[in-house]
């Protein structure tokens, strides 16, 4: 140190000053004393700090000097040195300077000693203050530096003033002061230089100091010998492969290590030189450890008694040439940002796909983003929360589904745990970071599954769609890279056209003829090697397609089972135009396969194409497209939507017998071909009927797989399945008439009779069986159902069940046939009334019955039933106006009109006939009243025609009735009647299921009073009959009204002729 100072004193140099600190240096040289001094004072500390910071060398040198002392006791030595300094107070400035420096350094290094030395320091300081005059700068400065900070500031100001005051009158030589200043700076500069120059030396020192513990073994003189010179030779120990328990390789190696160390230096040292394992879950070398030793026996000795290793059962010598392969290391490709990985560690996310955002420098940790699984505390157990205990993570509940982070949800429950920035959409919630909805986390790469990630496109698209602008920025390249190193190699089958894109055979194209493991045998089809057969590993292969090829997507793509035509090929990405949807999709060529079939698969789980499914309580839809994991559904409103199978409530079974009515009221069923009325007039086959909606399938369009939906009442039948005669038969009114439905017994047989209430009158009546094996037997009705009666036979004493229609009721006393349903006073009139007809018991239909009052029950019913849907339906047709005209309402309630007024309206259906008017003016009952006067009746009475037509009505041959009617002026009416017969079903007329038959005779009967009128009426009726004449007659009140036909009997019964009947009977 001392020598340094002297040198410094010696070579004070102006230029050095400049270098050291240019700006102040100029000033110091050229300006007056005041400034100089001020400057001096100001810049010195700076210089000093520089020195302090950059002069470890002197420190260390000093330390070295003292190192020996340090061991024993540094303090006494230093103290003595200080004492020595104290003694030499009068020494030159340089020396003092040095001394101070030294002291400072000591203080820095031995702060722990400071307190002990305080008195010493104190003494020093005092002395220094005393010699202010003589060595103004150094002492003050040093003192300031030594002082505590608070003192420092105060002292500073004072001293500066002192400084200036003292300097001016000071008689110290200018040159001397300049010199001092320069020396100081020089010293600083030198030290700085030393620090930089001596780096090597420093390093040496450092090495000496720290290197003692571990001798630098081998590194200095170790040159890298090429590996080929290291290849094993016979001189080297041999390596044996020893069987061990799978998964325990590492443990075994450590056990060997322990044994080696334990026996080291004993007489039975482990005689092996090395042992290693290359285990691992996916390693082919698992289940073995490899032991290097001179002799095989050494290994037996070494491994004897070590767990999990079986040296005695299985030991192979590894050939020398194979030895290097045992230690081959293949570099794992570094994770690149954008790559896909799967998470292993946070148990909640195990198996989830994640994308690498960033990788740390050493490649051991990666920042990944993945879709969080948050329940936002919904499932937090409040008890645990209260305790402050955390649930054991080892007990995972059902993990929440993957959902992007929602700030709102987080805020709802845990506003306190949420911090973030809405601008960047980055949040911290419960200690986890979220960016753009994704959770972002630093994860060690051993907690990531890097190989065999096999991300499915679904998973990947979840990430891609997260782009802010909504665009899909799918990095297919990264995806391809990820997929490529998947161990699941592409399956090639013989016949595939394959291209070699990597390796020696690059560019070769051929057809696979054989595939064995990873080796594909190619029959080369193009190029120089054409015709040759080569074997290539399937690593560098890809399937080759040509534009225009018809291919099917197989494998892991989202588009699996799509079939289409190749339109573009870029590397191993193939774009194809799908057959089904005509959309372009891009897939990897490995996922493609030459296709022979067309179209995709038709089902997804239990749902298949064209199925009707329930989406929610009010929505049903027809599946029009089946994707791999979703289906497209056309709902009843005509909207298509893509739904997951989970969104489907259930599948609606096809109801074979579902029936709807088209706009004409025709019955439509599944598989009927119908056409839209109006609109686009689309035509299609009914595939589903749901309520009033029908789903139709057409082959004329591809849209929605040809399915469209419409309302049932906006289609017309084009062709009914199986040739059901829907168009001509008209609506099945009996099926539509609720009144009929209410009385199923009558359904299909005849018009429903007005219901009679109370116990069946038939019970306890005496009856005669008219048909079947028991025909003619007498019995008593014991019990009845709607259709059948249980009759206790007088003769056999047993009870049989007979259709009511086969019974004729007899008066118990007189034995006369009676109508049990007669009511009131009219009953008397029926004393001998003809109940010949099976349906006769519902004689209420007879005009007579109602005839008691001025309206027939039929009318009554017609009035009530006039409002039945059937009527309304018809009302929708040409007949409507009349009905809707309110003839029903007005007339019906208008007292001035008879119910026939209604009939009038009815007549109005077919351009009402005056006849009807007249007829209405002469109500049927009247007509009946005068019935005997009508030709018809007269005819009937003459030839029992009245009966005949009646029977004719029930007789299958309209002709018969025609004949019967032929007599009558209503002959024309008879014609009508025949047409009426035609109308529903002739047979029906017979069996009287439809009112038609009744109506048939009716008009005639009714018309009897006013034949002409009737003709007109029926003529118009015929005109009207276009849609359904019979129907007209049938359900209409007219029919009912006309029910008088049977009532003809009734009429007869009523009429004076009635007894005649009775007589006949």
């Amino acid at each position, binding site marked *: 140190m001392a020598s340094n100072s002297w040198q410094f004193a010696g070579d004070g140099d102006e230029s050095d000053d400049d270098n050291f600190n240019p700006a102040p240096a100029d000033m110091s040289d050229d300006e007056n004393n005041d400034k100089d001094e001020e400057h001096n004072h100001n810049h010195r500390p700076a210089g000093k700090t520089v020195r302090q910071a950059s002069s470890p060398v002197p420190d260390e040198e000093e330390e070295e000097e003292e190192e020996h002392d340090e061991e024993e006791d540094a303090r006494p030595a230093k103290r003595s040195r200080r004492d020595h300094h104290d003694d030499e107070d009068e020494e030159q400035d340089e020396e003092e300077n040095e001394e101070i420096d030294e002291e400072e350094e000591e203080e820095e290094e031995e702060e722990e000693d400071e307190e002990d030395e305080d008195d010493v320091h104190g003494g020093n300081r005092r002395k220094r203050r005393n010699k202010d005059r003589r060595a103004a700068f150094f002492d003050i400065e040093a003192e300031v530096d030594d002082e505590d900070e608070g003192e420092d500031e105060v002292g500073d100001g004072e001293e500066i003033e002192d400084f200036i005051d003292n300097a001016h009158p000071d008689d110290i030589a200018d040159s001397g002061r300049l010199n001092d200043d320069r020396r100081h700076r020089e010293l600083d500069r030198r030290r700085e230089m030393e620090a930089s120059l001596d780096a090597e030396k420093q390093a040496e020192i450092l090495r000496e100091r720290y290197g003692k513990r571990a001798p630098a073994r081998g590194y200095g003189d170790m040159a890298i010998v090429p590996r080929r010179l290291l290849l094993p030779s016979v001189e080297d120990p041999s390596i044996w492969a020893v069987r061990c328990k799978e998964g325990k390789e590492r443990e075994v190696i*450590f056990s060997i290590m322990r044994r080696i160390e334990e026996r080291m230096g004993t007489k039975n040292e482990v005689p092996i030189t090395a042992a290693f394992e290359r285990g691992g879950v996916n390693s082919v070398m698992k289940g073995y450890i490899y032991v290097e030793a001179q002799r095989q026996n050494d290994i037996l000795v070494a491994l004897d008694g070590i767990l999990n290793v079986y040296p005695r059962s299985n030991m192979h010598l590894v050939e020398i040439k194979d030895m290097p392969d045992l230690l081959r290391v293949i570099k794992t490709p570094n994770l690149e940002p954008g790559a896909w990985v799967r998470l292993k560690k946070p148990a909640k996310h195990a198996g989830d796909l994640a994308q690498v955002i960033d990788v740390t420098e050493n490649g051991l940790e990666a920042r990944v983003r993945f879709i969080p699984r948050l329940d936002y505390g919904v499932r937090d157990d409040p008890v645990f929360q209260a305790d402050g205990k955390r649930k054991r993570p080892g007990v995972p509940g059902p993990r929440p589904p993957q959902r992007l982070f929602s700030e709102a949800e987080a805020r709802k429950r845990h506003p306190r745990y949420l911090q973030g920035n809405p601008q960047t959409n980055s949040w911290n919630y419960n200690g986890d970071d979220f960016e753009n909805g994704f959770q972002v986390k630093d994860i060690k790469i051993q907690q990531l599954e890097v190989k065999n990630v096999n991300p499915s496109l679904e998973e990947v698209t979840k990430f891609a769609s997260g782009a802010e602008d909504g665009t899909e920025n799918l990095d297919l390249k990264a995806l391809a890279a990820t997929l490529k190193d998947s161990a699941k190699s592409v399956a090639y089958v013989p016949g595939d056209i394959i291209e070699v894109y990597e390796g020696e055979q690059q560019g070769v194209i051929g057809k696979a003829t054989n595939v064995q493991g990873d080796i594909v045998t190619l029959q080369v089809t193009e190029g120089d090697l054409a015709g040759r057969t080569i074997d290539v590993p399937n690593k560098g292969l890809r399937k080759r397609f040509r534009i225009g090829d018809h291919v099917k997507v197989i494998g892991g793509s989202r588009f699996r089972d799509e079939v289409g035509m190749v339109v573009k090929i870029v590397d191993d990405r193939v774009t194809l135009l799908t057959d089904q949807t005509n959309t372009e999709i891009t897939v990897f060529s490995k996922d493609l396969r030459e296709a022979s079939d067309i179209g995709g698969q038709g089902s997804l789980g239990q749902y298949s194409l064209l199925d009707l499914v329930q989406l929610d309580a009010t929505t049903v839809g027809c599946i029009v497209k089946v994707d791999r994991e979703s289906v497209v559904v056309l709902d009843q409103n005509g909207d298509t939507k893509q739904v997951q199978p989970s969104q489907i409530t259930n599948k609606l079974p096809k109801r074979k017998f579902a029936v709807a009515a088209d706009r004409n009221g025709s019955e439509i069923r599944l598989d009927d071909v119908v056409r839209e009325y109006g609109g686009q007039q689309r035509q299609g086959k009914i595939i589903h009927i749901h309520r009033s909606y029908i789903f139709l399938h057409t082959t004329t369009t591809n849209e929605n797989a040809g399915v469209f939906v419409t309302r049932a009442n906006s289609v017309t039948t084009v062709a009914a399945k199986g040739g059901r005669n829907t168009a001509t038969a008209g609506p099945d009114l009996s099926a539509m008439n609720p009144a009929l439905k209410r009385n199923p017994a009558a359904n299909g047989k005849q018009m429903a009779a007005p219901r009679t209430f109370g116990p069946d009158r038939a019970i306890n009546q005496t009856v005669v069986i008219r048909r079947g094996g028991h025909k003619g037997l007498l019995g008593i009705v014991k019990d009845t159902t709607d259709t059948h009666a249980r009759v206790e036979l007088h003769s056999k004493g047993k009870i049989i069940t007979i259709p009511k229609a086969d019974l004729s009721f007899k008066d118990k006393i007189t034995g006369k046939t009676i109508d049990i349903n007669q009511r009131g006073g009219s009953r008397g009139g029926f004393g001998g009334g003809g109940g010949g007809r099976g349906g006769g018991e519902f004689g209420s239909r007879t005009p007579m019955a109602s005839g008691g009052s001025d309206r027939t029950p039929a009318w009554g019913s017609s009035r009530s039933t006039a409002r039945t849907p059937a009527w309304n339906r018809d009302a929708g047709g040409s007949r409507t106006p009349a009905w809707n005209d309110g003839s029903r309402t007005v007339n019906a309630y208008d007292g001035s009109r008879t119910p026939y007024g209604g009939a009038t309206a009815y007549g109005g259906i077919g351009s009402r006939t005056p006849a009807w008017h007249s007829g209405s003016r002469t109500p049927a009952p009247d007509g009946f009243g005068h019935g005997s006067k009508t030709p018809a009746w007269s005819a009937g009475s003459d030839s029992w025609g009245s009966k005949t037509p009646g029977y004719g009505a029930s007789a299958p041959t309209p002709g018969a009735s025609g004949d019967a009617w032929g007599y009558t002026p209503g002959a024309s009416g008879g014609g009508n009647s025949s047409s009426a017969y035609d109308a529903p079903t002739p047979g029906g007329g017979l069996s009287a299921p439809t009112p038609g038959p009744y109506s048939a005779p009716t008009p005639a009967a009714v018309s009897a009073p006013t034949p002409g009128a009737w003709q007109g009426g029926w003529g118009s009726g015929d005109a009207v009959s276009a849609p359904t004449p019979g129907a007209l007659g049938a359900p209409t009140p007219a029919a009912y009204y006309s029910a008088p036909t049977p009532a003809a009997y009734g009429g007869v019964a009523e009429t004076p002729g009635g007894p005649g009947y009775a007589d006949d009977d």
Partner: protein
Amino acid sequence: MSENYVAPGQQRYLRACMVCSIVMTYARFRDEGCPNCEDFLHLQGSPDQIDSCTSQVFEGIITIANPQKSWVAKWQRLDGYVKGVYATKVSGQLPDDVRTTLEDDGIQYIPRDGSATEAD
């Protein structure tokens, strides 16, 4: 006695030096440093340095009983090192500054992550 033995329960704390590939527990690296590379890696007592210069990801454990005689040691270029447990492959990369230091010191750094084998 057997200082290089690591019980199975402790094996998850194992780390491998990226320079010499020696495998030890984190605690040992912290307490003793790397027996081969301490000169320039200064792992002792420096968790940061341990984090950046050693790796938890390594495979293929090798017990070297006699580094001088063993061919395995020679092949793995471990023949100058102390006996102990090494890894055949250590994933991870040495930080650049450490790498430069090594170069400056004239020490040939052999990457242990498999990238060197391709060069041969």
